[in-house]
């Protein structure tokens, strides 16, 4: 009947794979686009998808503590951090586009390559007898991690570097869920709290940098050398 799909393990796996693929597509789209506010919103959507993946896993694998982790992720990464960052953008009156260091088409292709690398790394974790989720989600997680690294190097503006750092954390969250159904709750709590505080700390720093340097361009931070 109608409830049947919601209990079928295979359906759950399909949905999870679908959402993980969407997260990956969004990450690649983020590399390609040029507006900071869009970047923040896509990050919020990605985090939402991740918490939904967590909920799906919790549902199908009867692991209730993941619900809490998912709820926390929802509150912190989908609501609090994006709101804080968007307010920061408004306050700083940022109007320029993101100009990456490597041009966009090449960055997109490099991101594709990094995704492949993520798959290769994830292969080494895959044991056929494991009850877990399979290596799809882990591959997406590692790809997210690698693409986040690459984005961090590829950007000049401080705020985009912070967003890259946050997407690194997203990748780690997904990796945690797919490898081990999330880490112990208290660890998840600690990590999420740290993410929130880190976002705020970095936001404050960016605001002050912008005030002092009249720009968020970190390539201008060159006074300390040697």
């Amino acid at each position, binding site marked *: 009947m109608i409830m049947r799909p919601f209990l079928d393990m295979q359906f759950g796996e399909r949905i999870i794979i679908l959402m993980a*693929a969407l997260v990956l597509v969004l990450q690649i789209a983020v590399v390609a686009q040029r507006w900071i506010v869009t970047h923040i919103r896509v990050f919020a959507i990605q985090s939402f998808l991740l918490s939904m993946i967590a909920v799906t896993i919790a549902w199908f694998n009867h692991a209730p503590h993941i619900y809490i982790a998912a709820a926390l992720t929802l509150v912190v990464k989908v609501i609090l951090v994006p709101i804080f960052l968007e307010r920061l953008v408004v306050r700083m009156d940022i109007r320029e586009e993101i100009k990456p260091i490597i041009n966009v088409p090449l960055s997109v292709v490099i991101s594709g390559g990094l995704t492949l690398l993520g798959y290769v790394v994830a292969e080494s974790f895959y044991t056929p007898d494991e009850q877990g989720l399979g290596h799809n989600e882990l591959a997406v997680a590692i790809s997210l991690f690698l693409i986040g690294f690459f984005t961090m190097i590829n950007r000049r503006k401080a705020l985009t570097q912070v967003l890259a750092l946050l997407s690194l954390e997203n990748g780690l969250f997904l990796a945690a869920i797919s490898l081990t159904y999330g880490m112990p709750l208290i660890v998840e709590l600690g990590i999420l709290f740290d993410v929130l505080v880190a976002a705020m700390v970095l936001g404050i720093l960016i605001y002050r940098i912008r005030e002092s340097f009249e720009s968020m361009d970190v390539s201008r931070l060159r006074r300390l050398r040697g």
Partner: protein
Amino acid sequence: MTESIMTRIVESAAQFFLLLALAPLITGAIRTLKARLQTRRGPGIFQPYRDLFKLFRKGMVIPETASWIFAATPWIVFFSTILAGLMIPMVAADAPLGLFGDALAVIYLLGLGRFFLALSGLDTGSSFGGLGSSREMTISALAEPAMMLAIFTVAIGAGSTGLTQIAGAAIGQTWRFLAPAQMFAFAALALVLIAETGRIPVDNPATHLELTMIHEAMILEYSGPYLALVEWAASIKQLVLMTLLINCFWPIGLQPTWFGFGALIGIGWLIAKLLLLSCAIVLLETVNAKMRLFRVPELLAVAFTLGSLALVSTFLF
């Protein structure tokens, strides 16, 4: 033997007429939907038919410097597009000329048409034509790899590049669409569809400004029946690509054969799916602005990456 040849001929004729009849309807539907979304009334769904009728009765003006290419192109484009259209499954899963050509043949027939259009744009000797041709070839050069990768992905999933087999493979499994490879391929093909049919954000089909036109620039010098043929061919190409997209991934409603009552149901399903896709296209067009020309490679790079991810994920997932 003779029976199957007879059935083939009948099916081809039926699909031929369907293509001719349906293409302007879809174009009209898209224009009307777009107008309605912009709170205008729009020219009406049947306007493209009226336009074609008008154009066929008008006289022609041909540039002095034009060669035989200018005269031949409309016919070549028209018939190559129709031929490609006969090779795709529209109503029946079994495409009428499916034995003669597969997905690659479709793509390259369309490419043949585009090649001649570009040549004729250069042939007119006007700068607008050359401008349009060069832009068109740039975009298609970037879009083609993405399209090939996506097609190959789908073909690997089906075990053959024959469109009949591809559609057939998709019919069996309901959740197949949810596989990442299919999703990525669908996304890549959708982006390529926008590029190939010249819709916003790649090209504006309604503009005649030098800064913004691509397809319109190539056909600027055509008039009268030639223009009618070229425009009709453009609508048919759009129909072919849209049908390709729909029936490779979502072949609900494909009938076993053209014959019998099932054909009408098949046509009905086809129109419904096409309308759904048209709505999506219209939404995309209304929400986005046309991209600057040198931003188009970025979009197509995303399509290319999606295509390659799709291809690789058939092996990895």
